């Protein structure tokens, strides 16, 4: 899952940085000539720049390869199109269910103020989102890989009942859909 990876990368990176600080601090009461430290430090700084660039540039390339923005134009012909309109403080959604594995294109708009269209799975894990903005249509493409009752939460503060602005979206297995 994306969130676990992000949490792991962040905590390990911060812990590494903290270790460097502690290492330097524990040696701060000793004395050495500053010029020698600077010469060595500048070499390490250059290496750090090179290392960050060497890691960051490929990472940028990989993460930018699959952006969500043009996904709707590339969606397959069988995609389910769902119109979602945000109001203070409820959602109007044209369809209430989709099938597992089906491409769903959410066309998200707002009738009044900015809202956020956040899709949560049954364990209340955020799986995708886009903003809902008056005057604009944001197309969010998502393929649900698990059946269940998904919650749509508002993720942009929109007034006093913002936290109560919810809707449900059912994702069915093929058997469920056939038997319905």
């Amino acid at each position, binding site marked *: 899952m*994306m969130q676990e990876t*992000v*949490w792991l*990368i*962040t905590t390990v*990176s*911060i812990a590494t*940085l*903290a270790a460097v*600080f502690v290492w*330097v*601090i524990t040696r*701060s*009461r*000793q*004395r*050495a000539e*500053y010029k020698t*430290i600077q010469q060595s*430090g*500048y070499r*390490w*700084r250059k290496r*750090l720049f090179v290392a*960050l660039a060497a890691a*960051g540039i490929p*990472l*940028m390339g990989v*993460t*930018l390869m699959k*952006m*969500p923005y*043009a996904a709707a134009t590339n969606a397959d012909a069988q995609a389910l199109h769902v119109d979602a309109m945000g109001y*203070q403080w409820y959602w109007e959604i044209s369809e209430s269910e989709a099938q597992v594995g089906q491409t769903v294109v959410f066309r998200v708009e707002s009738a*009044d*103020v*900015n809202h*956020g269209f*956040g899709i949560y799975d049954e364990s*209340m*894990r*955020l799986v*995708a989102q*886009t*903003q809902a*903005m*008056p*005057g*604009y249509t*944001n*197309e969010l493409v998502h393929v649900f890989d698990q059946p269940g009752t998904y919650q749509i*939460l508002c*993720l*942009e*503060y929109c*007034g*006093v*009942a*913002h*936290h109560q602005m919810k809707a449900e979206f059912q994702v069915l297995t093929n058997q469920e859909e056939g038997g319905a």
Partner: protein
Amino acid sequence: MMSHANESGNTQPAQPLVNIYVGVSAVVLLLMMIVGLVMRLAQGEMLDISPGFFYQLLTVHGAGMVGIAALGSAAIMWYFASRYLDLSRTLFVANLLLFLVGVVMILGSILGGGFAAGWTFLYPLPAKGMGLWGTGAAALFLGGLLLIGTGFLILHLDFARAITRQYGSLGQGLGWPQLFGRDSGEAPPPTVVASTMVTIVNILGITAGAAILVMSLVNLYVPSFTIDPLLAKNLIYFFGHVFINATIYMAIIAVYEILPLYAKRPWKPNKAFLAAWTASTIMVLIVYPHHLLMDFAMPTWMMVMGQVISYTSGLPVLVVTTFGALMLIYRSGMRWDVTSSLLVLSVFGWAAGVIPAIVDATIRVNMVMHNTLWVPGHFHFYLLIGVASMLFGFMHFLGKESVEQEDRWFARWAFWGFMFGSLGFVFMFLYSGANSVPRRFAEHLPQWVPYDQIASAFVAVVVTSVLVFALQFLARLFATRPVALATEVN
């Protein structure tokens, strides 16, 4: 005195004025932290408040923290820059007065008028309170922000005047002759370089902010005058991003100026330092689209720029400053007290806080992290453990009779409480964000409540520690003389 000091001949920074700035900052920071604690307690179901009042507190906390971070950081910048630049004390006072009037207007709007549209005042929410607040309350809030922005604009214009007068141009204030020419060793001191950068970016940022504030005000009274919501969002986040980031670039001056006194080593600008600040001047202005990554209607090139520049924007100054600070203290025979500890903690807070911020600026990550508690997790990391530590370090420094003066036991305990409390608090935000807990929710689902309760305990420790910092400073306020001017590092 630091090298390059007193180039302007201004040998008497107005410490009483700075004391007032810092005193106001300490008190407001403490109050805003208590507001933060109330919100976390409410989310943790340990305090019963209405959602309406929660969102009023959210609005006052956001506006108050951004404003006071700017005020306190401006005090640091002004205090040290006034050694090198002939700054106007009248305009420094004017900024404070405009700030205080603005605060009164904002408090009146929120507590009196029920305004609760968030400090980001996203158009058109201020005009659509659904009966909870009226046009007058919204106008009072927007007008208050406008007044505060105007005060800072005046202050920064005075910096622009003083830098131009002392160094010839803003480019020279950034050390361009030394950066692009031969390094003569006569580059402006770090304080002037940082002040120049902040002057440039904040004049542009505040102007954009003023434009959207005025447009929003007109819209309140002339609803037929509408604004493109996406343009409004761009202007707000450009202003907001620049203004809050500028607080770090102002407050970091405390590290540049004070830490050398403790390490007994100079912090001199070299080409890498100057290049980093010039690069950051540009990048802080163009990185703001990373706030809009979930606005799919934005041009794709801007989104790509938002991610790419996020990866690179903080690094130059950050790596240069973090590395510089670590080199400065490594085997220096460093003297450790609450001031130096807070300043080193602040550098760590800034550097570490950037990590979850950069991660979140990755478009694919943003899809599942945007507007979760991950976001306050990273900005509290570099604003609380970063900027607030810089401010408290500076405050503690101002209150000392000499660098060698021993700290009282309660100040040392307050430092440890602040550090561990803050770390616990921000990690609970990050952990909650990694578990998809939305930000800005008055009420949380039962499975999220334990996170809020643990976080509340950490906040209580932070508040207690900051209470000690503030009381100690206020008690010393007029009883001591400044140490910085009497101390030399060569």
